[in-house]
């Protein structure tokens, strides 16, 4: 009896929460991760509290081993937390060790590598999530065309991934993550494998896409200037075990451009973060 009553109570609770007020919001309470089952276990992330409001562009910054990727992959449902609560739009992502699929569909993931399937054309790669959800081909094609336009690679629908440059492949990966219109975009060092010039350009593009779509974006990087350039808020993590060291609001006007990077305010942020990072790593 309790078994059937409980989910109903939760459903009412999340309705009372009202869907809309929670849209795109992420909430973590005492979220913790240990790797391994035998000693020595690795403490990847110490109990962490963090609220990410709707529409924020939050950057997780830190040296390697600070648990930033672990944290992002937990939010993305790829790693199960050891303990603590992880609420996406007010609903728990994990319930009794089972990932909640309807919650997962509000999350779009972009990885360091584009991870496009080489046996699918760009169009089919971008529309893959829609295909998995059973959308008919004609609709998928129309959706893919629209998405490719948004990320600026129209005309490459029928190409193979290997025929595109690294930057273009990453654009396609972003389009794929946006295809099913999740409220939240999770990005794990998305431009880390690109050359510096392409990377700057992709940061501008990401800012544009973010402001056009109004998505909540959580982005992992180890580049300080990238963090300052993109973020509303930077969460600086320190290693062994990973935990939040500092949270920094970045009050720079938008849209930020190449000129923004030359302003004293921008460079102050960068310098402060450099000092902080040197102190913790």
């Amino acid at each position, binding site marked *: 009896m309790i078994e059937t009553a409980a989910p109903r109570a939760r459903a009412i609770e999340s309705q009372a929460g009202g869907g809309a007020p929670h849209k795109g919001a992420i909430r973590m309470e005492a979220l913790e991760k240990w790797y391994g089952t035998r000693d020595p276990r690795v403490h990847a992330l110490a109990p962490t509290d963090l609220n990410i409001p709707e529409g924020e562009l939050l950057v997780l910054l830190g040296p390697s081993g600070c648990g930033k990727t672990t944290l992002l992959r937990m939010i*993305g449902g790829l790693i199960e937390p050891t303990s603590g609560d992880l609420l996406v739009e007010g609903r728990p992502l994990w319930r009794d060790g089972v990932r909640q699929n309807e919650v997962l569909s509000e999350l779009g*993931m972009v990885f360091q590598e584009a991870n496009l399937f080489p*046996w699918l054309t760009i169009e089919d790669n971008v529309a*893959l999530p829609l*295909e*998995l959800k059973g959308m008919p081909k004609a609709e998928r094609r129309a959706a893919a065309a629209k998405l490719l336009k948004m990320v600026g690679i129209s005309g490459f629908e029928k190409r193979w991934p290997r025929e595109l440059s690294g930057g273009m492949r990453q654009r396609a990966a972003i389009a*794929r993550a946006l295809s099913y219109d999740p409220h939240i975009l999770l990005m794990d060092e998305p431009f880390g494998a690109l050359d510096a010039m392409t990377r700057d350009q992709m940061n501008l593009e990401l800012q544009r896409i973010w402001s056009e779509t109004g998505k909540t974006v959580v982005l992992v990087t180890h580049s300080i200037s990238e963090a300052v350039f993109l973020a509303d808020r930077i969460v600086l993590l320190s290693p062994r075990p990973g935990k939040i060291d500092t949270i920094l609001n970045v009050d720079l006007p938008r849209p930020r451009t190449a000129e923004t990077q030359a302003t004293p305010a921008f460079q102050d942020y960068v310098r402060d973060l450099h000092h902080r990072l040197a102190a913790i790593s």
Partner: protein
Amino acid sequence: MIQRSLFHPANRAKLLPYVTTPLLVALIILIWHSYVTLSGVSPFILPSPQSVWTAWIAMLYDPRAWNHTLMTVYATLTGFAWALVVGVGLGVLIGRFRWLEQTLNPFIVATQVVPKVAFVPLFVVWFGFGLTAKVIVAAVLAFFPILTNTVLGVKSVDAGHRDVATSLNATSWQRFRRLELPSSLPYILTGMEVGIVLAIIGAIVGEYLGGTQGLGYMMIARMNAFATNELFAVIIHMTLLGFIFYFSIGILRRILIPWHQSTQR
């Protein structure tokens, strides 16, 4: 596309085999012919190229020879089809589930190591002199390269691609159909290339040892009749058959995995 001269260095390497292969074949036939003529070796030991050619042409006009060919083709392809279905199916399961691999691995290694041709008489005892025994021998020989390559293929699925499937919440079937199968196809096709040749060998060895049909039987019959030139003709016939099967898999490769490096020209 940049159009290059036929004799551009980049094209020269590709054209080379079209020149060297016929030349080498001609050279071998010339040496063969000279040896037969000069040494006066008995035609029962080594027939002349001409007599082999005549025998093969005669074979092409003999409906019974085509009937034998058809039997061998049938046994090869049926056995190969079984090997493909079971090998890929089991390979995907083994590649996916570690416990299954650990359970089955000793048996797979054991059956790999056993000289499988040694079981052919046993198959004849069990399944008789008909086609069934030949199909089974072909299937057993073709099975292992297909299985092991499929396992390797499934295990080689890129971790990043698996992350994508996980974050897109793909079902088990979708994961197989959209990720593991296409990702493993280059490996499976390599297994098929080896497997189809082994399937022919299996069918022919099966025909050696029992029954009155197929190219393997035909070889034994010609040998017993001391018609060595006709024996050679059957060998040529089988070789051509092998080429056709092997290149069919190559064509399949171009159709199924145009995206893969192995298909790049």
